[in-house]
């Protein structure tokens, strides 16, 4: 009967395509919008995840997320270094500074100051130049997105393409000269500002002078040291907040979830996509069954059991569900591919595939159940009505 079920489904081309379109739309919305949401949320902690070396981040206890900088006194670094179980502890400056561009305009940049001696906390991937070049006079490393977009030089001709920064180009950071010595690849941040790496001492020189300049202390635990235990020990010994990388990521994630409209905005989009997709696909599938009710009645009169008809409807639902889901996630993947080099945040982990699959399955089950109910209640005697 499977063959008959599939032929019944595909026989009405318009309805068949309508159901598939509804499910494709639902699947697209249920994966594309969350993919942007996940991409956006991952940017909130990309700075933390880019720094793979330290085990523990130490900061002011009032810090709520990674960009919420509440500077510490430089002496706190030594107190952390004094805690037993700490292999090393390095200073990190993180702050927003204005870079003056060659056309006279200003661009806010995320300036990261690394420990002068070890350069711990540097960018994950160097595209041009080397990290140690930061030791050169006034040296800075700029992230590729910043170098090609917001910090790029004016085009040679009006309306032309901006000229990306290259090694040897200069920037002006708070009236200080900075020379580009490298181009790095970093994960885009939530605010999508250019990222400029330099040494800690140079970063605090670029920044407006304050009594406290130290943003974070990056800590590496001794081999075999239990991270949660060391974290607690640092907290107790210094009175500062200390988080493992995962805890700091969670802190940042939770802050954005609780204090911004992002989850509600995307949640609404996903819910609407689900409802609209379910309505279109469910309604079309139900109408399709209603219009085929007489045909189901004929099969029933000829001796087809309810179970056989149920299997036929389920098969139809599974087929349209699979095609709609495949097209939807395919379009989402295509969208991600098309926007891979743009500012748009997009991350498509397998969990979203599962989420989209579950959503489409729910819609199909819903559509099949309302259709099956009608078919099971169907009196085969309708076949004798003209």
């Amino acid at each position: 009967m499977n063959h008959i079920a599939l032929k019944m489904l595909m026989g009405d081309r318009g309805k068949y395509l309508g159901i598939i379109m509804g499910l494709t739309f639902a699947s697209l919305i249920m994966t594309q919008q969350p993919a942007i949401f996940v991409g956006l949320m991952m940017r909130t902690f990309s700075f933390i995840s880019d720094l793979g070396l330290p085990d523990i981040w130490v900061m002011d206890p009032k810090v709520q997320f990674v960009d919420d900088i509440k500077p510490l006194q430089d002496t706190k670094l030594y107190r952390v270094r004094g805690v037993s179980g700490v292999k090393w502890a390095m200073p990190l400056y993180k702050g927003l500074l204005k870079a003056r561009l060659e056309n006279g305009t200003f661009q806010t940049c995320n300036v990261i100051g690394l420990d002068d001696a070890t350069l711990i906390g540097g960018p994950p991937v160097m595209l041009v130049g080397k990290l140690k070049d930061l030791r050169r006079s006034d040296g800075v490393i700029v992230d590729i997105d910043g170098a090609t977009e917001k910090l790029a030089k004016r085009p040679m001709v009006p309306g032309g393409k901006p000229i990306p920064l290259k090694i040897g180009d200069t920037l002006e950071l708070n009236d200080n000269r900075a020379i580009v010595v490298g181009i790095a690849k970093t994960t885009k941040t939530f605010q999508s500002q250019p990222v400029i790496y330099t040494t800690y001492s140079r970063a605090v020189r670029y920044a407006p002078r304050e009594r406290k300049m130290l943003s974070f202390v990056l800590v590496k635990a001794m081999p075999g040291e239990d991270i949660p235990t060391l974290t607690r020990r640092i907290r107790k010994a210094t009175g500062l907040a200390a988080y493992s990388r995962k805890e700091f990521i969670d802190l940042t994630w939770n802050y954005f979830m609780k204090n911004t409209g992002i989850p509600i905005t995307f949640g609404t989009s996903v819910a609407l996509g689900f409802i609209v997709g379910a309505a279109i696909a469910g309604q079309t599938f139900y109408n399709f069954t209603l219009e085929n009710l007489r045909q189901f009645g004929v099969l029933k009169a000829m001796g087809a059991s309810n179970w056989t008809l149920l299997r036929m409807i389920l098969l139809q639902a599974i087929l349209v569900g699979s095609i709609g889901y495949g097209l939807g996630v395919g379009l989402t993947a295509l969208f991600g591919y098309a926007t891979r080099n743009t500012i748009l945040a997009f991350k498509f982990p397998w969990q979203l595939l599962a989420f989209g699959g579950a959503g489409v399955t729910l819609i199909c089950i819903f559509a099949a159940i309302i259709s099956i109910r009608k078919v099971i209640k169907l009196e085969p005697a309708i076949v004798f009505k003209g």
Partner: protein
Amino acid sequence: MDGLAKAAVSCKNVVKVYDTGGDKVVALGGIDLEICMGELMMLVGPSGCGKTTLISVIAGILDQDSGSCEVFGKDLLLMRSSEKLKFRAKNIGFVFQAFNLLPSLNAVENVSIPLIINGVKRQTAERQAANVLEQVGLGKRGKSLPSQLSGGQQQRVAIARALVHDPRLIVCDEPTSALDHETGHNVMELLRQVALQRDRALVIVTHDARIFSFADRIAQMDDGHIEKVVDSAEYL
């Protein structure tokens, strides 16, 4: 009819009442009817007299409220629904007024449905279906969709579908009403030839006086009752 002929259908005091929102409509008010093997019985009468209800009960797709209706010695009302389905699938063939072919299936596929319902493999079923289509003169139209066939051809496909699984009872609801006189005549000839070759029984509900002569006996119904059952010659 020969009094010794074996009964294919035996209805005794069959009553069916429809409840139409408070009003009770007596569709069958105590029907007694016997249809023998090898007999073509026509049920005639005005609209709403209970003909369709009676063949629905005989075909086992509608339960009567009281009385008994035995088909080949089995009382369908006493069967479990799964048994009844199997019995129907094996023993009863249907020909409908509106043909009721599945529009997205071609003629061979439509004809093969009863076999597939009876568990025959698709390829075998389609081979058998093609043979039966040959018998009804549509051997070359097996791949045609219903929409590509004339009314008469569609009814022939429907007849082939009713015969393909070799049922012993064939119920037809107005099989010629959607056809012109000549096509209707041809369809009846075919039904008579093919359906009554072996020990089968045919029950035909019709308004079409032009085909009365094909019947062995005619049961005249009115208002939920059978007024008379006579030979077709006598009726005409």
